Structures are given as C-alpha cells and as structure tokens.
C-alpha cells in the first residue's frame, strides 16, 4: 500500500478557524472534513469544473480517515473584535419600484420579439397588432421611468426644516467611517509550533497514479483553510514526518472527517445555503489519539453510550440529588405518554411479554453538580443515556417521543418558532421542574456534558449511591463481624454490577460510609428505592472503585442505574474528593 500525502502550510504562521461546536474556541489540528471542504470549494468555483478533479475528490472521500502530522499550537486569547456594519443609510432603495420597472422592460422586449416574428412570418395583421402593443409598452415604460426617477430624486432631497427624525439623523451620522456602528465578532486562532500540517491517507499505487496528479493540481489552488485570513499553500507531496495523530476508536479527540458521499452532500448543501444562510458542515466523527502519548492499554467502554440527549433545568425549584429517582420516573412517564403504542423496549424497560427487559435500555440520569470545590450538589439537568448497542429503530422511537412531547409543548405555549420548548415535569410534592433540551453544538455546563462522566480512568467514585442488587446484610450492625461481612457482601455485589454493564471486574471496591465527592449526599438521606413500598427495598451505598485497566464511562451501576442511582464520576486531578 502506498500513501497520499497532502501538505498544508499556514503562510502567516497562524491558523484562524473556529471549533465546530464552540464559537469561542479555535480548531486544531485542522479537521480532515474542513480540509476536504476547502478542496471542494476550490474545485467548484472554477468556470469549468474539471472532471478528473471531481473523480479524485469522490475517491478521496471514500478513503479511510487519514493520519495527521500536526504539532502542538498555542491559543491566542479570544477577544471580541468590533467590526463595522454596512447596513446604515438614509436613502430608500425602491426595490419594489425597480422590480416593476424591470418587469416592464421585459414586457417591452417580449412585445418587440413578437413584432419581429410577425414580420418574419409576413403576417400583416399580426404586425399591426404587435406594433400597437410595442408602442403601448414603450409609453408605459417611459411613464414609469419618469415616475421612478422622480421618486428616487425626491428621496435625495433634504427634509423640510423640523422634519428630521431621530432615526434618520442617527443613520446619517453613522454613515461616516469614524462613527460607524460596530458588531462584536470573535476570531479564535492558534499559532502552531510548526506551521506545516500533513494529512496522510493510505491508497493503492493504481489509485494514486490515477488521482494523484488531479488532486495535486487542485491543491495548489487552495487559498485558505478556515477564515479568509488563514492563508495556506497546499501541495500533494511524496512523504511526510511521522504522524502525530492517529484515528482510534478510544481516542480523546473527536475530529470531523468526510463521509463517502461527502462531495454530493456538500454540493447539495451549497445550493441550499448559497454561502449566506447559516450552515453545519455535513461530516462523520472520528476519534483520534495523539501518537506516543497513549502507552497504556485502550480503555474498556461500558454498555452505555456517549450519545446523550441532555436537558437543562431552566425553571422550577432547584432540586437536591435525592429527588433523582422521582425526576427520572416523571421523565420516563412523560416520554411513554408520547411514545408509540406499544412503547419500545428501549424506553419502557419491559419486553414484549411485560417482563423486565434483560438487555440494557434507556437510562434517565439526573445530573448533579459534584466534585468541585464549590459544588452545591444540586441537579442541573437530566441526561437520556442510550445503550451503546441499541437498535437504530428503537433509538428513532425514543427520539420521536421527545419530538412529539416538544411539539405538544409548542402547541400549548403557542410558540411555533422555538427549537427547544420548555418541558414541564410535575413531581408531586417536590413541585414542578421546567427543562429545556440542550442543542448539540451549543456549549453547556460541564456537568451536563458526557465528557465529565466519561474519563477514562482507573478510579471511579459514586456521585449518587448504588442501589445494591442483593441485600448485603446489616451494614450498621453493632457486631463488628456482622458489619464486616455485610461490607464485603456489598463490595462483591458492586463488583458484579460492574461486570453486568460490560466492565472488567474491579481490582478494588470500597464501600464509603459517608460521601466520596464534594457536593454528594449521604446514602441514608435518599428516599427508599424502589419507590413502590410493596417492592423489596434496596440498600444504597456510596463506593470507591478501582479497575485494573482504564475504563471509559458513563458508569451507571446497580439496580437503580436506569433512574440515576449509581452514577459514578471518574477521579482525575480536578475532581474534588473527600478524604
């Protein structure tokens, strides 16, 4: 196998490009999807689009994600730059009148063409009629011309004394360059240690021979990657330094890469947005790992996915973590109300026959603010966490339920325009809670993002207590032997529940008598679980868990894992743990 290497050189020593999911952050290293877009844009703006280059672009999109050579980069402080506006002005544009005039001009041209064709056909009567039409059209046009000209010239005359409106005074003043209004904009940028970046795709010798030259020619025409100030020189070359980024499923960094039909998607999107409307770059996501820095084994991932639907609390009383099960049940109830009938197993947790589902289903996890020096322990929102291996149809069903719920709310609040209407959860004694879905791509609170709960890490501690699957015995017995046995049983139960969600057997579990995290609440303060008093009540404990290998979350353990109990937090230098 051979390699296609594309070299990018940032000519000014800076790369000015904004992260796709955070307006205040620069993107580095440059995402392959962004580079691909630059190539496509360069190809598309030619007078005549080269077919060989098109074929090369289609081929490039189908290749596996490239390895990347890019050094580290320093980020400049992101500050607001005030950019002068251009919509000031005091004269009217008379667009409507001008449009009408253009239509009359067109009508005259049509009439003249009719006259000429009648003449050519030798149609005497037709010619007379057509000539009359032309004369009429000419007169109408002449009158309209005088009228429009008059309107425009009138508009240019000064107002009569005393008729100056505040608005037009302001508008006139603002036309002068030094008084022009300004809008804040930010231009996040980085300066890489090495201004060269290489992208390296694996390719066959035949393909390279066929498509290499076309891509090479296209590359040299690329002007910029990112903002217009982010000038580059691109070229296809023979080799590159050892890549520093590699695509790997357990990598920390998520980069956007082109999908196999990316060219088609981009062309279609362009015809819609015409470079005016706001748009999102169609792409696939690929995790990358920094080469050389990951000498430890790849982390094991839990049965729960990174694919979260997060809802932020925007109204109602701030609730303590102890209400988590109540909130999760209320939310599940609301979703079931709007779901298909019979509801998908993913959502209800019950198989077709009504019995408890064996497979992982949707976990509804209220998220507490814990682990910081000033953590209050309050619930900031709710995450809907889907299992990693869930069926696409079932996932759609869950999304549909949310969509219907939001639609119902839009009707209720009579507001059709809002993308994320406020959703109400009624909790009985605890009152009402108002939630709003956090849209993908908007920066949200750290607590509400999957990154906070993912790790990976060897060490994990409970944020909310684990509801043990088996009764361990009396943890608070006065008999030391009995208590010790109960602790051991609890720890074994916790170890088993780790395995149940696809994690390795822990090397160490310790039941924590108090709370392991700043902001967390003691297990005994939590209301009974399950809430139905006829059901067998579970014992709840906090714990600290060590795994022999790094584990990537989310880690949800125990019988209450679908209701927010047993939510674990990875321990890193930043997490504030109680001694």
């Amino acid at each position, binding site marked *: 196998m051979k390699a296609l290497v594309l*070299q990018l*050189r940032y*000519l*000014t*020593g800076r790369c000015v490009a904004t992260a796709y999911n955070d307006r205040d952050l620069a993107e580095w290293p440059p995402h392959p999807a962004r580079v691909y877009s630059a190539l496509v844009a360069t190809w598309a*703006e030619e*007078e005549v689009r080269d077919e060989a280059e098109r074929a090369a672009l289609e081929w490039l999109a189908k290749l596996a994600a490239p390895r990347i050579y890019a050094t*580290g980069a*320093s*980020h*400049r*402080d992101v*500050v*607001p*730059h005030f*950019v*002068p506006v*251009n*919509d*000031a*002005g*005091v*004269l009217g544009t008379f667009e409507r009148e*001008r449009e009408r005039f253009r239509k009359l001009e067109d009508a005259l041209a049509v009439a003249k063409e009719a006259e000429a064709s009648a003449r050519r056909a030798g149609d005497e009567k037709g010619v007379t009629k057509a000539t009359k039409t032309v004369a009429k059209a000419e007169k109408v046009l002449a009158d309209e011309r005088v009228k429009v000209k008059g309107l*425009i*010239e009138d508009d*240019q*005359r*000064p*107002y009569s004394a005393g008729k*100056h409106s505040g608005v*037009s*005074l*302001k*508008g*006139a*003043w603002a*036309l*002068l*360059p*030094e*008084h*022009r209004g300004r809008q804040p904009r930010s*231009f996040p940028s980085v*300066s890489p*240690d090495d201004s*060269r970046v290489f992208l390296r795709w694996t390719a066959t010798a035949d393909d390279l021979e066929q498509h290499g030259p076309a891509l090479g020619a296209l590359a*040299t*025409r*690329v*002007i*910029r990657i990112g903002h*217009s*100030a982010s*000038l580059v*020189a691109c*070229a296809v070359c023979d080799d590159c330094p050892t890549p520093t980024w590699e695509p790997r499923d357990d990598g920390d960094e998520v980069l956007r890469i082109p999908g196999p039909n990316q060219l088609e998607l981009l062309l279609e999107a362009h015809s819609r947005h*015409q*470079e*005016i409307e706001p748009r999102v770059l169609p792409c696939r996501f690929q995790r990358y790992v920094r080469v050389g820095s990951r000498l430890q084994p790849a982390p094991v991932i839990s049965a729960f996915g990174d694919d979260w639907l997060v809802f932020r609390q925007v109204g109602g009383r701030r609730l303590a973590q102890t209400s988590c099960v109540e909130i999760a049940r209320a939310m599940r109830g609301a979703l079931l109300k709007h779901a298909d009938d019979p509801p998908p197993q993913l959502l209800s947790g019950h198989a077709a026959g009504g019995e408890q589902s064996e497979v992982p289903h949707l976990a509804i996890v209220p998220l507490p603010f814990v682990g910081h020096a000033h953590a209050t322990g309050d619930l900031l929102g709710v995450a809907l966490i889907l299992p990693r291996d869930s069926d696409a149809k079932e996932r759609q069903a869950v999304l549909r339920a949310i969509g219907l719920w939001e639609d119902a709310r839009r009707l209720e609040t009579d507001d059709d325009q809002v993308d994320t209407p406020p959703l109400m959860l009624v909790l009985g004694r605890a009152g009402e809670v108002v939630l709003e879905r956090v849209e993908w791509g908007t920066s949200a609170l750290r607590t509400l993002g999957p990154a906070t709960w993912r790790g990976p890490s060897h060490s994990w501690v409970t944020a909310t207590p684990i509801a043990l699957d088996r009764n361990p015995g009396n943890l608070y017995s006065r008999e030391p032997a009995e208590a010790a046995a109960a602790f051991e049983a609890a720890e074994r139960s916790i170890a088993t529940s780790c395995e149940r969600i696809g994690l390795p057997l822990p090397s160490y579990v310790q039941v924590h008598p108090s709370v392991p995290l700043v902001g967390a609440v003691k297990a005994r303060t939590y209301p009974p679980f399950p809430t139905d008093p006829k059901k067998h009540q579970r014992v709840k404990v906090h714990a600290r868990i060590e795994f022999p290998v790094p584990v990537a979350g989310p880690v949800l353990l125990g019988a209450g894992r679908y209701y927010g109990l047993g939510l674990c937090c990875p321990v890193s230098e930043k997490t504030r743990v109680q001694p």
Partner: protein
Amino acid sequence: MPTTHPELTLDVLKHAVAGGAAAVRCVTRLQPAGGKGDKVFPPTYATGEKATTRYAFEDRRIDGTTVATVLLDSVASQANRIEESLQSAWDEERLSFPVITVDFGKEDKIADLDTISVLQAPHRIADALLRDSLDAADGKTRFRDTKIGRAYTDATVKNATAVFTYCPTALIFGVWDSTGPKGGLGSKFQRALVSEIIGVGAAPGVKTASRLDPAGIQANVPVYHGKDNAEDWTANEELALKKNGKAVAFSRKGSEGKGKPSAVNHSNIAPSIEDKAGGVTIDYALQTTVLSLPALRKLRFPSDGSGKTLDAKARMEAETSVRTALAALALAGIVEQRTRGYDLRSRSLLVPEDGQPLNFELVPADGGDGERYSLTTAGASELVRAAATGAATAGFVWERTPIKLVPAAKLADLIRESRRRAAEGEGEEVSE
C-alpha cells in the same frame, strides 16, 4: 552585515504571479521608536471583569522556548493602515490608480469632512456611504445607478474586469457586497493580503495616571455654578447660583468631584494605577504580511475593459498582466507603510529594526525557502506603473478620470443637522 537582495523586477513578479510561487511574504522586525525596551500600548479589548489583562496574549513556542506574545495590530487594523498608506501615496501622486471618492468639500458647514475614499470607507466600494452618494457630474444619479456602480454590481469573481478598472484595491483587500442590490448573493471577493503585528517577549506594565496642577490649586477650594451662566463656574460665593439660599456646588456630566476644583479640571489628580492595560515591554515586534497568489489567480477576466471577449491565448497573458498589476499595487502598499512608519496608536510608534532592509520572499508552492527581493519606495512606484502599463496593453486600463461622488443632499443636510444639535447639547442620539 545585512545581505542586500536584488530589487524586485516586473518580470520576476510576473513569473511568480503566473504560477511560479504560492505567495509573496514579508516579515519585518520592529522596535519602539523610543528605543528598545520602551513601553508600547497594544489594542485593548473587552476581556471581562475577571480577566487579568485587556490585551490579547498568546504563549508561543519560538525556537524551542515558550515566549509570551501580544497582538499589537490585528489583521483588520493592518488592512486599514495599508489602505491609508496607499491613500497618502495617491494623494501625493506617487502612485496612480483609480480611487473612488465622496467629496464633502462643497457642502456648507461640513466641508471639513473633506473627501472620503474607498480606501477609507469601512466596506470599500460596497460601503453604505457610497450607496447614499451621487455622481458628482450630474448631482442626481445614485452611485449604484451610474455606469460604474452598475458595472460593479454585475461584476463577479469569474468576471472581475469592472472592479479592476474602477477599484483595484477592492480585489486586494477583499469586499463583499452583502447589502447591495443583490443582497446576500452580491459578489464576494476574498482578501488577497493578510498582515498582522505581534509583540514578542511581551511583559505587561502598569500605567500610572496622576497630575500635578501647575496653578497649585488646592483640592478643598469649593466651586459653584455661576449665577449668570450655569455652565460657568466660580469660586466666589457671592457670584454663585443660589438655591434655597445656598450656593449650588458645581458638577458637570463626565467630571468627577462635585463642588471641587477637579470638576473643572484643576487641582491635583490622585495617582491611580491601571494594571490591566498598562502597556507592555517587548523584545521586538514582528510584522508578518502575506500576499496570496492563488487568491489573485482565482480572479478571472474573460473580457477586457472595452467589453471584448478574449480568445484563450490572449486571455491567459492578459490575466497574468492584470493580476501582476494587482500584486504590484499590494506590494507598493506594504512598502509605503514601512516608509511612513508604524504609528499604531498613542504611545505606540514602531520603526523597523536597524540594519534590516525590507525584503519580499517568493514562497515556493511546494515548501522550502524562496528567493528574496528588496523594493524601495521609488522601485515600488515604478513597478506599479510598469505593471499597469502591461495590463493596459492587454486591454485592461485603470480608469484615469477621477471618479467623484458627492453626498446626497438629504445626507449632507442630516449630517449638518446632527452636528448642529450635538453642538447645542440636544443630540443625545448623535453623541459619539
């Protein structure tokens, strides 16, 4: 001993523009005019209450060590300054190229606004000011309805002849006609020139503000509003404005210290220390300027100034000549800026480091270092003249007749009225 590089010639530039190079880059080291180690003041930004500085810092790795750098002049600001340099070269007739101007000189009471050109208007030829101005020849036709205005509206990247003919600087600095007759679909010309100045090895300083009153007026002398004229002040209680039998202490909007001499700009000002925007000291400043040649090559000129469509061979030659003229003009702007000096803002005048002649690198398309060339002010002027002549020979002539506009009577009148109101203190809405 600094190496002297050969002077840049038209042939070398033309070859680079035709495809021989990816860019023309100019990197210049600067020092404060007051000498190495003197403080300079970077631009301040609204960085928020919690920020420790109002400047835009960045820790960069240079030659293996981490060095603090600060933004001294942004890309947009540098573009404005290079345009200013071209403006003064044009005013002084050292360079000759088309510049559209709006002339306030004949407007009663606001003649001091003088002329505002496309080099000074924030959005260049697409600026709202030009939209509300009229052809000086007849005083009636709006700019966008004139022959030139319509030619500009119809111009695109694929046919940029009109822009080259009437406003070549727009093709260098970029322009987007987003508020013109075509709205968002108006033509977008990407900038070809990008320049930025940073300070390397930047250490923040503090700025002290204190003043000793030369008249030695004590702080505790009471000051009152005048009886006859409330705007005026007096220290004499007899002559003061009275309310309920007591003299009214003087206060003025914007001045601190009601009833004290400091309200009328007298007396000492207690020292204050500003540490968020107290200037910086730098090891040196670095200006990096890049002219993108692919950006110029993206511009197409299928028909010449007279509207004649060119055949394939003639077209290739012609397009190279036209793009070379644009490149020459851009480089002239850089040279002119260097000659004028870098007066960025108050207390921030920079000059090129000693023994450092200006040099342009022709950056090769496939990496590595390029050949370097020097260029003097006279050389730049000659380069522009020669390149323009070359383009003219191919049928692309820069408009020689000065393109003059005047503000619409309504606009002039409104500006006059705004000024009048501001002077009389009425104009809350028009305050700067």
